[in-house]
């Protein structure tokens, strides 16, 4: 164990902290806007360098642990802070550093219209987020992990609500915060229970206990389930998935960074990091797998009916996260982690590409897009690369990781989730290429390209069907260099990873049947084919296709009423509770105090009569006192 290598990871972490502190403290610098951005980007670049170096140093089984005592307790220390760098955490660190840097560069172009103080504020939050995420990834113990977990949630709130003057953004930020908080409560309970159970917060120590079989299993399932609840909230598993689509109110680079590649993957990362704990509780893992499969199907269905390009990607993220969870639930967390890494790359790519489209068209709506491949060829290319990766075709990034997940669920014996995931693979390809065909191909006019749902076309009939839609009074251009560069980097990375893993198969932990790969690829191709037939060739009418699914379709349009259910519960339970508390406060607490003060006032009024001003009364008082003294001397 070489402590020196831990310092590289630590340096990567602290560079972002430095950027944050500088920007937070030096308000004049922050308010200048672009200079603040350069400070942040510079630190991000340095951080990426440190992360890559750290990753190269930690291949295989090398582990570096660099900690400082934080909370001492009698005898041993209660908690430490520092870094725990091993193969997994450093590769995740590279992902975080890379996507952070690319997103920050991209934001220079995307947010070029923002006033400088807002831009400075944005980069301050970005630096804070990167620091917290790295702190989470490198956390050597549960305490630091939880602290960074909460910090990351805070940054998510700040960045979703970046355009805080918009009520929709405010609500979305608050919703994200509350829903993830519900999961975090469970997580905290789990951490404390684990500490009571094992006597430590430290991951390395707990691992040694687990490996030696010294970890008592009684009640461990409950604790691990509580820990899993944190992942449910953060990684948007059912029923706490509802915040992620709404979180799209934030700027698109934020969505790319936080709600695709890094923050939402923290839940998956947590489960992978503590997989040796979860291995001791297979019943919890079964729940993880089934919930994952169900959420994947639910969100894939919802993605098919969205008209907002970012919403499609959001539901897609939920679906892919659930894929990873299913693999972890099957017992092969390495497969899930692998998909986390590849997904981080191509989902960020898709989001940034969508951002380029949105920036050009000034609208999120698919109906306002169309035929963009002609006017934005580079964007189209990189977006299609991302879509192919998501669909999981060979030579692209998602191919091997998705197949590994399918193989893992099969090998774990979870037949039901396996079948569900095959269906989801089909749907994934379908909805992604629906977006591709609707946005980049077609006639390029709003009213001529109806999304699924007849009612939608009626709304847009009023707009003209000219070459440029009503929502695009400007020319539609390729994005600027600051936006294109990250897109190309991610696209090349996607292809590079895909090619590498198509030809270099790492040793899998399980054996998959030979028919798995053709099945997986086939379902993806079938999905692409259906999308092509429906939206490009118009061989199948979209409306009739939707009607064929009748109640499911109607339910999907309403997001299966899950959001409404949450809202109703919130209104009735929480507001009712606060009304009760308010009553107690007004009548009991205030009442007690008011009674006490009334008594004091009336006692004062009564005692004031002692001061009558008449000498006789005072003599009377003296006589009484004399009598009391005499009695006391006699009988006391």
């Amino acid at each position: 164990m070489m402590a020196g290598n831990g310092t590289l990871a630590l340096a990567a972490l602290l560079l972002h902290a430095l950027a944050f502190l500088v920007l937070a403290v030096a308000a004049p610098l922050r308010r200048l806007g672009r200079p603040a951005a350069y400070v942040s980007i510079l630190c991000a670049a340095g951080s990426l360098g440190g992360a890559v170096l750290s990753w190269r140093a930690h291949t295989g089984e090398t582990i570096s642990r660099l900690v400082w005592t934080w909370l001492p307790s009698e005898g041993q220390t209660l908690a430490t802070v520092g870094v725990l760098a091993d193969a997994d955490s450093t590769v995740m660190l590279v992902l975080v550093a890379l996507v952070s840097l690319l997103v920050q560069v991209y934001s220079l172009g995307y947010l070029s219209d923002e006033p400088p103080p807002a831009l400075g504020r944005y980069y301050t939050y970005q630096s804070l987020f990167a620091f917290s995420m790295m702190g989470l990834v490198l956390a050597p113990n549960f305490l630091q992990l939880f602290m960074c977990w909460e910090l990351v949630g805070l940054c998510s709130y700040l960045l979703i609500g970046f355009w805080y003057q918009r009520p929709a953004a405010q609500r979305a930020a608050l919703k994200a915060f509350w829903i993830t908080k519900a999961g975090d409560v469970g997580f905290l309970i789990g951490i404390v229970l684990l500490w009571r159970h094992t006597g430590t917060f430290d991951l390395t120590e707990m691992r040694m206990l687990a490996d030696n079989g010294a970890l008592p299993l009684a009640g461990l399932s409950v604790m691990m389930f509580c820990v899993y609840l944190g992942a449910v909230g953060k990684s948007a598993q059912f029923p706490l998935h509802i915040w992620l689509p709404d979180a799209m109110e934030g700027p698109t680079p934020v969505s790319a960074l936080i709600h695709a590649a890094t923050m939402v993957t923290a839940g998956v990362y947590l489960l992978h990091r503590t997989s040796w704990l979860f291995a001791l509780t297979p019943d919890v893992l079964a729940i993880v797998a089934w919930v994952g499969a169900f959420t994947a199907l639910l969100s894939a269905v919802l993605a098919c009916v969205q008209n907002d390009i970012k919403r499609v990607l959001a539901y897609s993220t939920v679906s892919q996260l659930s894929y990873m969870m299913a693999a972890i639930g099957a017992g092969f967390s390495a497969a899930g982690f692998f998909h986390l890494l590849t997904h981080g790359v191509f989902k960020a790519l898709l989001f940034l590409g969508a951002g380029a489209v949105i920036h050009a068209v000034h609208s999120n709506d698919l109906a306002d897009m169309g035929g963009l491949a002609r006017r934005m060829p580079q964007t189209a290319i990189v977006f299609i690369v991302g879509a192919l990766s998501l669909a999981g075709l060979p030579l692209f990034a998602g191919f091997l990781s998705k197949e590994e997940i399918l193989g893992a669920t099969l090998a774990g014996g979870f037949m039901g989730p396996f079948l569900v995931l095959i269906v989801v693979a089909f749907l994934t390809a379908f909805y992604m290429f629906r977006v591709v065909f609707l946005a980049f191909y077609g006639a390029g006019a709003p009213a001529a390209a109806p999304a699924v749902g007849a009612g939608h076309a009626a709304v847009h009939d009023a707009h003209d069907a000219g070459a440029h839609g009503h929502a695009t009074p400007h020319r539609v251009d390729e994005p600027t260099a600051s936006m294109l560069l990250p897109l190309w980097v991610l696209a090349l990375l996607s292809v590079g990873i895909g090619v590498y893993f198509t030809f270099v198969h790492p040793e899998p932990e399980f054996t998959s049947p030979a028919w798995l790969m053709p099945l997986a690829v086939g379902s993806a191709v079938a999905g692409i084919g259906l999308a092509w037939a429906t939206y490009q060739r118009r061989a199948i009418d979209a409306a009739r296709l939707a009607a064929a699914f009748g109640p499911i379709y109607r339910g999907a349009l309403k997001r299966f009423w899950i959001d409404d259910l949450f809202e109703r519960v919130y209104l009735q339970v929480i507001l009712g509770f606060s009304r009760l508390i308010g009553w107690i406060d007004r009548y009991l607490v205030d009442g007690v105090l008011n009674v006490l003060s009334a008594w004091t006032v009336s006692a004062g009024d009564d005692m004031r009569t002692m001061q009558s001003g008449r000498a006789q009364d005072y003599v009377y008082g003296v006589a009484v006192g004399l009598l009391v003294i005499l009695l006391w001397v006699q009988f006391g």
Partner: protein
Amino acid sequence: MNADVLAFWVLAVVLVGSALAVVLTKNLFHAVLWLALALTGTAGVFLLLDAEFLAAVQLLLYAGGIVTIVVFAIVVTERLVGERISQTSRRIVGAGAISGSLLAMLVRTIAQQRVPPAPPDMPADLTRAVGETVLTRFVLPFELLAVLMLAGLMGAIYFARPDD
């Protein structure tokens, strides 16, 4: 029953009776007269205690002087003829209780003391003894008393000055 005991009881009755009258009479002027009687009774008690000088002083100063000036004060401040100011007050019950309890306590304390021996013989010429003691052992309080009375006199003159 010898003469001493009889005299004591007579004087006690006179004293207590007139004291009660002082505090209970409605007419203030009558109260002053009853006070005069009480003070005279006290002088009698002094005589019983062989303190002739004190009895004389008591009669001169108390029964003579104080009663006179009280009468003058009443004349100045009250319209004797005509309206009668009611003397009843609000605190009779409370005061009665307090005084009664205090009396009970004092009597009890007194009764608990051991019976003192027979009174010793006093010097024959008590007046001379008193005079000697005043001017030798207590000369300082005597002088201070004179200063006090001077101050009192000046104060009284100051109070009595006409309003200019």
